[in-house]
């Protein structure tokens, strides 16, 4: 559970930086295609986005796992929930990382 607290605190700090960076220009402008690509291509910022992705995926799916474990108990069910959430977490991180890496390497 310490990982849940740790990821929450780290995510709050990094998401705050992320929001502040978005405020350097208008909100709609910051979401324009070229600006988003530029963000991904700026390596330090891309690393921060990757970190946010990992932190939120771990925090979110661990939270979901805890909620599901509280709803119902049983050895098989608990195993299925834990491994299911872990698989979903890895899947989401892989998919998000793929987008960041592909954009960073100029494949988009």
């Amino acid at each position, binding site marked *: 559970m*310490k990982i849940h607290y740790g990821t929450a605190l780290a995510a709050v700090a990094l998401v705050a930086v992320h929001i502040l960076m978005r405020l350097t220009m208008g909100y709609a402008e910051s979401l324009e295609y070229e600006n988003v690509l530029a963000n991904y291509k700026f390596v330090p910022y891309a690393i921060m986005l990757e970190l946010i992705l990992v932190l939120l995926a771990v925090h979110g799916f661990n939270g979901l796992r805890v909620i599901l474990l*509280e709803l119902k108990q049983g050895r098989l069910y608990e195993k299925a929930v834990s491994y299911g959430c872990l698989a979903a977490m890895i899947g989401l991180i892989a998919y998000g990382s793929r987008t960041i890496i592909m954009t960073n390497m100029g494949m988009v």
Partner: protein
Amino acid sequence: MAQVSSVSSEQSPTAKSIVLRISRFNPEHDESSQFMEFNVKYEKWTTVLEAILDVKKHFDHSVAVRYSCRQATCGSCGMIINGKPRLACFTKISELDSNVITVEPMNNFPVIRDLAVKFEKLFDTHQKIKPYLIRDDTEIESDEKEFLQSPEEVEQYIQFANCIKCGLCNSACPTMATDSSFVGPQALAQAYRYVADSRDKGKDSRLKIIDDSHGIWRCHFAGSCSQVCPKGVDPAMGIQLLRGYMLGFRS
């Protein structure tokens, strides 16, 4: 199954009467619980337990209720009285301020019959957290004195030593209602009681026991456990302090 009866025992003229609704349920042949109603006379000092025993004496001796000391020491007569977990022997009818008193078995415990519930899980989880002092030097050498403590050290845990294992905190806990494997506020408060004791050396083993997927982190800090404790123990605070040990804020 509901019936209305009246206790006409030798009561003083000052006695008032209430309707006592008792939940009846025998898991061996009932599908759901039903209430039986009794008109019971009471004085301002009459407790709910005395009213139930009046019913047993005069109307229906088959009403199942567990009790022993009648002075809030043994922790046997916990039940839901007008929707709140209380000790029947420690709850006066006059203080409930109602003409209808409803008594039900405690929540989050399997019912044996009527108002009596099984305490096995409570005792199992209590035992699981090793409710005793753990030390390497269990034998005191002849030239040594007792394990002395300062008043400040005693203050750290003394209120938690008042627990009488009545199970009211577990009955009030919303997490226990959904998570049948949750260790519960009673055991967690007792874990804190021994972890915070300066004479104890078993902190690490206890913290390991409660740091599992149905352990201390499942507490949502609703605080209902502390509200219902008849002995003034504050399990919710104990759990938060215990989390301080888990996270390294306390040592």
